[in-house]
């Protein structure tokens, strides 16, 4: 692929890079579109970094299609991968991985990258960049994984509400007023492994876009995990470790990355992570009827139970 990007030191017209901190990973994003880059800087202002990049993402923005045309093509689009190259049908997106140079090159339609557009691929881009850098830096043992969850910081610890899209994560975030706690993210959080020196699991906020804008870039210890289930009442039950393991593994974002893992390796990484997590913190199923008072009463109730009591 032709060199489309200038490094920061030789840029003359505009600084075409921004560095994004995602947990312990720094991702340098280079983009040929000044408008998009400025939007990304504004959007991710809490996550900008001066650290040495672990991975470079070169983004070439193309503008061949109107948003209406794009929407219709997207529904029929398929993603294909051949070796280190990938592309979508309809020429919406193509790119290549360069493991040796820690680089992902992506050429894509502007609307797919524009944060103002509902249909954008920014979250996938962040997820791929994070796991790619993790693979290069840590092999098959990432220190933290991305999890589909909304986090609420209460009394110095985080409670996370995990589940797939449309299960109620954003509703919980919206039901959280200042007196209930602080919302970390309503879509995806970064969860560490339990520390080997007795430190517990920590949760770090991410620059991932849910329905709400990403909050401040901060970390807090994990109190417990709720796996969400929609119902017409709000009630909870403790999950035994085997059930917790099976339910939690499905909330982990798979480590899709540069020089992808085979399926079994990817699942093994998730299995190890899920196994470590459920043996360190209590996991509950929360049936949730979207009633604010009951929700926070349940959270108060659980805060009265010690972690040791739950795990034994």
């Amino acid at each position: 692929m032709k060199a489309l990007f200038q490094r920061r030191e030789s840029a003359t017209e505009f600084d075409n890079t921004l560095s994004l901190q995602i947990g312990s990973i720094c991702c340098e994003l280079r983009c040929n579109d000044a408008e998009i880059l400025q939007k990304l800087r504004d959007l991710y202002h809490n996550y900008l970094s001066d650290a040495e990049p672990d991975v470079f993402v070169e983004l070439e923005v193309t503008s061949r299609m109107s948003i209406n045309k794009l929407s219709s093509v997207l529904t029929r689009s398929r993603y294909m991968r051949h070796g280190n190259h990938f592309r979508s049908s309809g020429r919406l997106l193509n790119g290549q991985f360069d493991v040796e140079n820690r680089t992902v090159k992506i050429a894509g339609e502007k609307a797919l990258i524009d944060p103002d557009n509902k249909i954008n691929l920014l979250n996938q881009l962040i997820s791929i960049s994070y796991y790619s850098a993790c693979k290069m830096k840590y092999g098959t043992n990432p220190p933290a994984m991305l999890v589909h969850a909304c986090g609420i910081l209460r009394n110095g610890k985080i409670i996370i509400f995990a589940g797939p899209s449309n299960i109620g994560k954003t509703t919980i975030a919206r039901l959280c007023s200042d007196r209930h706690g602080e919302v970390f993210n309503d879509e995806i959080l970064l969860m560490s492994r339990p520390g080997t020196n007795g430190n517990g699991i920590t949760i770090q906020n991410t620059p991932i876009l849910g329905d709400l804008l990403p909050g401040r870039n901060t970390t807090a210890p994990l109190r417990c995990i709720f796996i969400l289930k929609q119902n017409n009442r709000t009630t909870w039950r403790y999950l035994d470790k085997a059930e917790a393991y099976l339910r939690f593994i499905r909330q982990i974002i798979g480590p899709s990355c540069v020089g992808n893992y085979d399926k079994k390796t990817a699942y093994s990484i998730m299995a190890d992570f899920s196994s470590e997590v459920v043996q360190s913190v209590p996991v509950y199923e929360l049936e949730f009827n979207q009633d604010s008072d009951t929700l926070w009463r349940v959270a108060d109730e659980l805060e009265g139970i010690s972690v040791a009591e739950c795990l034994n």
Partner: protein
Amino acid sequence: MKTIYPIQKDEVIWRRIGDTIVVIKEDGLSSHTLNKTASFIWELCDGNLEINEIANKLNERFEVSLEDAQADVHNLIEELTIADIIKKSKGKKDKIRY
């Protein structure tokens, strides 16, 4: 009667969680949770032990008669084979050529 050496399929991922073993197929779509006895048997399905040898070990480890142990192992191997997470090999793993 043919000698059978049960062996865990390559495509499965399993982890011991407390007293149980949880087996997931690599597509992530199906899973199996094995109780304490089934977990003991599962761990012996490495392609090097024949069904009767596994039953002997079950008989030694748990308070179960050899007859019952043989029936339990046989039934479980059948179930796990149908679930497509165990395969039955006619020879020891060490002797199989890949």
